[in-house]
């Protein structure tokens, strides 16, 4: 008797042991995979942020020894940054933030976690492919980080890696093995993205709950759906061009080498054919999340739901015919600049429509200024600056001056930090209770928000002024130019603000981790929101819903006269109409 018990006990322990790995590491559960993407993205967010601090330090006090840190990081070059180190830092900051943070957190973390829950599915259509998608990211992480330890250091040709700088190993120290590792790593990232995209598209098309028509889907799902289509169409182009570069570097092809009949502009065309849509891959999901959060905390239906959907589709379509605006000064035929300028001006229109609809959603609302709402509103207000500053760059003659200056750096950071990152902050704090079953502190969320919003603007708004002064991007030492002497003080001011901005993020990290153990237990629907993920428990069970949800209405019936409360879940049956 005792013996059988012992055996049973051992077997039980064995299955539990197995299930721990199956449940938390090699899991096929979209919620676990979403959290895996979340944690690895947040790690790379911190890493990319620390690199930004080193960049800012160099720009403010070029070639000065940083106390303690200089001795640790730059010991091989006399405790100061080396001239080749600066392009390496710039390259890694951009690469990590784009490919290891913004894209994976939006599509990987939020896409994974939210798609099945918000459409009422038990899991993704292809759970194993989903797991494989994450496990294609893991080698990418290590291969990219390995670049820091190889001879010549990590890739240093910019996140755009223009050929032939990136094709000829002799041109810059990082263009040795580091550049090759960069290519291989991004091929893995691309494969992971494509697997994810196939899965998201299939899931959204096939696995929607009964009654969840396409035009009852929340904006977050629409945005993730269109984003997945963009990923599916654009990423193979990036992967192809990366492989061409790989061949140029390793087996002697000359796709980008003019000396043997190749053409360096081909790299730019193909790279931007992916990387311009990638800008929308990095912003559309944040737009979707901000739409849902703003509607929820204004307690009011999203204004212009269908125009919002159509404008996302318009952005995605137009996004494929604007890549040439990165190349106005590249030496491509300047006549093409005219068509690319016109299409670029057009792509600003759907963004404007979205902004007006967000504002109209607030009109006559009952606005609750919670931490997620404040971040979503910051998304709107800074995205406006990002968008408007892009119009200067779209205007080709003005672009002649501001192209490749800090104007562009300011523009991209207003879109990706001001836009995407505030959207991500909003999303994390909004869905945290559903992900982890506990609430984050709203008070510390607001402290984090206020300080981030202020210092963000103090760091990035002056970049437009630097752009007007003509300060080129990616130069390690602005003091080398007399015409930049007047802006050195501004550079130092921005750096000090950047340090504060960096430190403030510790509040978010602390809030995140402390709340995991000490946060208030979350109820199923803490925000009194309408969408399906709030109808199940927090966190949801393995199969997501205890009973399969049936959808009767759109996601935005806030303050409907049909209900006593100011919200109306998508699963609520409509009151029987007279005559039924």
């Amino acid at each position: 008797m005792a013996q059988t018990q012992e055996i049973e006990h051992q077997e039980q322990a064995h299955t539990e042991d197995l299930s721990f790995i199956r449940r938390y590491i090699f899991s096929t559960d979209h919620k676990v995979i979403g959290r895996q993407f979340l944690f690895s993205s947040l790690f790379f967010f911190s890493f990319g942020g620390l690199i930004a601090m080193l960049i800012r330090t160099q720009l403010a006090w070029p070639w000065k020894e940083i106390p303690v840190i200089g001795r640790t990081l730059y010991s091989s070059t006399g405790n100061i940054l080396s001239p080749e180190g600066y392009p390496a830092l710039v390259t890694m900051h951009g690469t990590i933030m784009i490919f290891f943070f913004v894209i994976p957190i939006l599509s990987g973390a939020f896409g994974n976690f939210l798609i099945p829950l918000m459409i009422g599915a038990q899991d993704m259509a292809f759970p194993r492919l989903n797991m494989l998608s994450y496990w294609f990211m893991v080698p990418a992480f290590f291969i990219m980080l390995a670049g820091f330890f190889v001879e010549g250091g990590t890739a240093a040709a910019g996140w755009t890696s223009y050929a032939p700088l990136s094709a000829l190993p002799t041109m810059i120290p990082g263009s040795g093995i580091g550049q090759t590792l960069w290519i291989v790593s991004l091929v893995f990232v691309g494969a992971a993205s494509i697997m994810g995209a196939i899965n998201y598209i299939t899931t959204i098309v096939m696995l929607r709950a009964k009654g969840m028509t396409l035009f009852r889907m929340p904006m977050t799902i629409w945005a993730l759906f269109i984003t997945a289509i963009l990923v599916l169409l654009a990423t193979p182009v990036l992967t192809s061009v990366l492989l061409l570069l790989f061949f140029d570097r390793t087996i002697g092809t000359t796709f980008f080498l003019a000396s043997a009949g190749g053409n360096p502009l081909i790299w730019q065309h193909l790279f931007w054919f992916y990387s311009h849509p990638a800008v929308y891959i990095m912003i559309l999901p944040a737009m979707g999340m901000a739409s849902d959060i703003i509607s929820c905390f204004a307690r009011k239906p999203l204004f212009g739901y269908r125009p919002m959907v159509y404008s996302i589709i318009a952005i995605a379509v137009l996004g494929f015919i604007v890549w040439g605006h990165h190349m106005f000064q590249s030496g491509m035929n300047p006549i093409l600049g005219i068509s690319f300028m016109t299409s670029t001006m057009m792509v600003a229109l759907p963004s404007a429509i979205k902004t007006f609809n967000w504002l109209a959603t607030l009109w006559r609302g009952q606005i609750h200024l919670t931490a997620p709402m404040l971040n979503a509103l910051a998304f709107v207000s800074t995205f406006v600056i990002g968008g408007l500053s892009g119009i200067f760059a779209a205007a080709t003659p003005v672009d002649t001056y501001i192209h490749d200056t800090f104007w562009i750096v300011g523009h991209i950071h207003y879109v990706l930090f001001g836009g995407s990152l505030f959207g991500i902050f909003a999303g994390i704090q909004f869905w945290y209770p559903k992900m982890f079953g506990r609430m984050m502190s709203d008070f510390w969320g607001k402290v984090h928000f206020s300080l981030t919003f202020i210092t963000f603007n103090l760091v990035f708004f002056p970049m437009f002024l630097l752009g007007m002064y003509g300060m080129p991007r990616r130069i390690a030492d602005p003091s080398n130019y007399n015409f930049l002497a007047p802006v050195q003080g501004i550079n130092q001011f921005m750096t000090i603000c950047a340090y504060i901005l960096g430190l403030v993020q510790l509040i978010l990290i602390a809030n995140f981790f402390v709340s995991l153990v000490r946060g208030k237990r979350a109820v199923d629907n803490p925000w009194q929101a309408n969408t399906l993920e709030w109808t199940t428990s927090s966190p949801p069970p393995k199969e997501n819903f205890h009973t399969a949800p049936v959808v009767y209405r759109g996601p935005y019936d806030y303050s409907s006269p049909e209900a006593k409360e100011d919200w109306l879940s998508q699963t609520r049956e409509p009151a029987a109409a007279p005559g039924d």
Partner: protein
Amino acid sequence: MGGVIPGASTFAGPIDSLFMIVLVITGAAFILVEGVLLYFLIRYRRRDGGKAEFTSGNRRIELTWTIIPGIMLIGLALYQYNTWLFTKVYLPDASEALTVGVISHQFEWQATYPGQDGKLDTQDDVTAPFNVLHFPVNKPVIIRLSSEDVIHSFFVPALRVKQDALPGRNVWLWFEGTQSGSFELACAELCGLGHYRMRGQVTLEPQADFDAWLADIAARGQ
């Protein structure tokens, strides 16, 4: 831009005024959007017992804020065409201009001037020292830009000129200086570890001074 980096070429007028026009339009849009946002946040803050208005859109309003910004954006694009054609697409008549070859490589610029015959790529070409570029003022200058290694970008903020230099290909650009003086030339495309110090000095001077300088360089070269 004119306020911070005074212009010194015929491009400065049109480019700076386009910048101002875009600044005024986007500035107005910025103030409008942020103002309305702030107003709504204060005006429609949560009140106890109240319920938000149950409205989900309005076709007429949607059409209004689609068509008006649409027309403005297209108009803004059309408005740029002439300046773009003037600055980048059409080159001046070569017989009235000075044509100079500029070759870039890591991390230097080098200008080559035509000699007595007025043609580049002939025996009497005059090659200037690295990073020293002289041009006559009030005369169109056509530059034949190329690179010997990677992509560089020829950026003279005061002249409102920027053009990437490509290996294996000549790219043509032009400008006409309006102010004598010395201006910095910066590389604006990441080109390697010395990108930040790929700096040239552009001098614009009256034709007579330019001729004397060129003769001096030619004499020293022989």
